[in-house]
């Protein structure tokens, strides 16, 4: 059902390393949000990534491949685990540094540039294979998605009834 990679090489190792490191960072950082909210902040990244990949990279549009094959394979699934800590850390530091006003714009642009750079590394290592997609499109997509994630964050935080677990 979920095929294994054709060849276990650099893209698989890179992905596993990134997943391991990013979750390590998430677990080592002092807790900032209640766990039920952290789950939502982790899931939002995964869900948006899954939806956009499904809409953009599946047959008919098929603008890029993820990992070795055009199929939905096991390591495609693992890439979605990588988006979760990224969305969490994006919101974690946004909240920790109490970013307000025009600094939000700078934060968004820097994170978008960081995300695009990370995608470029992924592309070089064969995690993504473009078939009509361009890196510049990713910049716009990340910018839009990060705005949505911030809106989601404020919307959820306005509705959370309890105090933050830790305010380091």
């Amino acid at each position: 059902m979920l095929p294994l990679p054709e060849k276990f090489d650099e893209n698989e190792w890179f992905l596993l390393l990134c997943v391991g490191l990013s979750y390590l960072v998430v677990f080592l950082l002092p807790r900032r949000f209640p766990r039920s909210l952290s789950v939502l902040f982790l899931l939002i990244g995964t869900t948006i990534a899954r939806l956009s990949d499904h809409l953009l990279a599946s047959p008919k549009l098929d603008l890029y491949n993820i990992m070795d094959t055009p199929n939905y394979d096991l390591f495609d699934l693992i890439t979605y685990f990588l988006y979760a800590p990224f969305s969490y850390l994006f919101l974690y530091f946004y909240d920790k540094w109490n970013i307000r006003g025009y600094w939000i714009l700078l934060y968004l642009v820097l994170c978008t540039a960081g995300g695009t750079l990370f995608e470029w590394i992924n592309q070089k290592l064969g995690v993504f294979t473009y078939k009509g997609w361009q890196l510049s499109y990713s910049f716009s997509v990340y910018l839009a998605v990060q705005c949505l994630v911030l809106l989601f964050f404020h919307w959820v935080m306005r509705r959370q009834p309890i105090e933050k677990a830790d305010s380091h």
Partner: protein
Amino acid sequence: MKLTLIIDAAIILLVSYYIMKKRLHLFENIFILMILEFLVTSYCAILYINLDVWTIANETELFIIFRVYETIIYPFIWLSYFNLQPIFKSPLFKWIWTGLFVGIQSGVERWLVEWDVITYKGWPFWLSFILQTFIVLIVHLALAWYRNLMRKEGIRE
């Protein structure tokens, strides 16, 4: 015409969900929606890309119908089910309610087959029933875990 109908159905479903009295906490609703979006896009991809037991129509109108189904109609039918289920106190009625929604989901899928949006290639229809039952079971388990987390944090009674 088909596309208009499905978009109208999606809008009516969204509005109904919005005005419905929610029995679940807002965070539970968001959690379920995200889990469902992930599950439905994954299982559809496995069925029509990996296993090739479904074919999705190439015609643009029908293809958009399938996308609307996957991303709006399917998850919001289940969300409505989860929000209405607490009305029933008796386990028997809860089971009947679940069976009814498994039937509704399979019926909508069957409707898409009739419209040639989905073409089965050796996929028996009864497997769709089992798949829907399996999905609702997974979401119930995930929700139970998340609800427990919320209880521990005092967000939910």
